[in-house]
C-alpha cells in the first residue's frame, strides 16, 4: 500500500504478457468462429454422415474441460509423435473448443429462420444452395452474432489457461510478478482488471457490430 512503484515496474512485463494473450485471441477467435459456422451449417444442411460428425464434434468438445483438451494436445500428442509448440497447442485447443460453442449458436440461429423462406426461395427458382447462401446465411450471421460474441468474451477469459501449457501470457506474467514481489493479492487483482478491460472492450465492439448489422424490422 505504501507505493504504487511496483505496478509501474511491472508494466513492461505486463505488456509483454498482454501481447501474447492478444495474439492468442486474435488467431483463435476468428478461426473458432469460422469453424463453428461451418460445423453449424454441416449440422443443419449436411448429409447424414457430416451431420453425425458435426454433432459428435460439438458434444465432445463441449463435454470435456478445455484444460483437459489442452493437456491432450500438448502433453498427450507427443506420445504418438506429434509435438506442438505451446502457442500452436493453445491456439488449436481454443479454436476447437470455441468452434463447438459457436456451432451451437449458428444452429439455433438457423432454426429461428422460418421454413417459409426456404420454400419461397425454392419456388421462385433458386436452388437450395443459392437460397442458403443468399437468403438464409446473411440472416444467420446476424442472428448468431450476440451468442457468438458471448463466446468470444468467454474465449478471452479462458485464454488464461494458456499459461498451463507453459505459455507466458498475461496470467503467466502475473505469476512471475507475484512470486518475485510477493504481492500476490495486488498482482492478481491488477491482472483480473486487465481481463475485465479486454472483455469490456470486446463487448462494446461487438455491440457496435450488432447495431450496424441489425436487421431492420
Amino acid at each position: 500500500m505504501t507505493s504504487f512503484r511496483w505496478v509501474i515496474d511491472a508494466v513492461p512485463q505486463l505488456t509483454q504478457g498482454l501481447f501474447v494473450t492478444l495474439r492468442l485471441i486474435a488467431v483463435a477467435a476468428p478461426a473458432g468462429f469460422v469453424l463453428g459456422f461451418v460445423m453449424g451449417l454441416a449440422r443443419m444442411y449436411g448429409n447424414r454422415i457430416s451431420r453425425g460428425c458435426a454433432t459428435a464434434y460439438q458434444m465432445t468438445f463441449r463435454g470435456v474441460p478445455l484444460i483437459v483438451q489442452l493437456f491432450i494436445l500438448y502433453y498427450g500428442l507427443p506420445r504418438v509423435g506429434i509435438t506442438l509448440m505451446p502457442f500452436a497447442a493453445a491456439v488449436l485447443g481454443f479454436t476447437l473448443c470455441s468452434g463447438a460453442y459457436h456451432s451451437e449458436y449458428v444452429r439455433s440461429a438457423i432454426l429461428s429462420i422460418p421454413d417459409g423462406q426456404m420454400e419461397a426461395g425454392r419456388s421462385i427458382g433458386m436452388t437450395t444452395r443459392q437460397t442458403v447462401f443468399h437468403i438464409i446465411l446473411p440472416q444467420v450471421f446476424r442472428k448468431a452474432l450476440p451468442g457468438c460474441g458471448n463466446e468470444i468474451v468467454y474465449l478471452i477469459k479462458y485464454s488464461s489457461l494458456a499459461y498451463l501449457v507453459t505459455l507466458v501470457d498475461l496470467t503467466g506474467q502475473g505469476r512471475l510478478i507475484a512470486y518475485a514481489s510477493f504481492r500476490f493479492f495486488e498482482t492478481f487483482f491488477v491482472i483480473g482488471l486487465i481481463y475485465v478491460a479486454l472483455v469490456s472492450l470486446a463487448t462494446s465492439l461487438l455491440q457496435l457490430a450488432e447495431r450496424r448489422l441489425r436487421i431492420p424490422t
Partner: protein
Amino acid sequence: MPDPTISSTAIIWSGLPTLCRGMGVTLILVISALAAGMLLGAPLGVAHVYARRGVRIVLWLFDRIFRGFPTIVLLFLIYFGLGSLPGVSIQPLTAVILVLGLRSAAYQAQIYRGALLMIERGQTEAALALGFSLPKTVLFILLPQALRFSLPSLSNEYSVVLKDTALAFTVGVIDLMSRAKFLAMRSRETLIVYLLIAAAYFILTHAGIALFRAVERGIAIPGLGQQRAKRRA
C-alpha cells in the same frame, strides 16, 4: 524414472481406483459450488430486479469481478492473494469452493433475474391486490415459477462449473484432473490417461444434463408452459 519391469498398462490399471477417488472430489466440488451459487444467487437475482440504486452499485461490482475475471485468476487471487495476507489461512478445497461458488452465484443471479423478468407484471399486481406484501409475493409466487424457468439454464451452468473444477489442481486440490496428472507422470502414458479422464468428464457432463432434464420434467406444472406458448403464438 518409472520401474521398467512394470508395464505402463499395469500402472494405469492400478491407478484407476485413485482416479475414482479423484472423481468423488470433483463431484463434491461441483455440488457444493452449485449449491452455494444457488443459495447466494437467488437473493442476488431478486436484488438485481428490486434493489435500490445504492445496492445496485455493489451488485454491479460483484458481477464485474466474478463474471469478468478468469476463473484461474480468481483462484490465484483468493488462494495465494488472500492466503498471503497476515492472519488469513485458507485451505485449497475451501478456496476452490469459495471461488466457484461465488462465480456461479454471479452467473445464477443473471439467470434468476431473467426468469423473474419473464413473469408478467399482472401476477405481482394481483398478489399485491390480494394483500400479499412484496417480499411474500416474490418468495411464494414469483420465485417458484422463476426457478422452474431457470432449469434449462441451470443445466448449462452445471456443465460450466463441472468443467471449471478441472482447474482446482492449480491450487493443489487432489481432484480427478490432479490424480490424472500424477498417473500420467508415473505411467508416462500421457495420451491414454488424459483421453481416459476426458471420457470421464464427458460422461459426467452429459449424465448431469440428462438428470437436470429429468428434474425439469418432474417438477413441470401441467399446462403452464403451454399457456405461455399459446400467448406468444
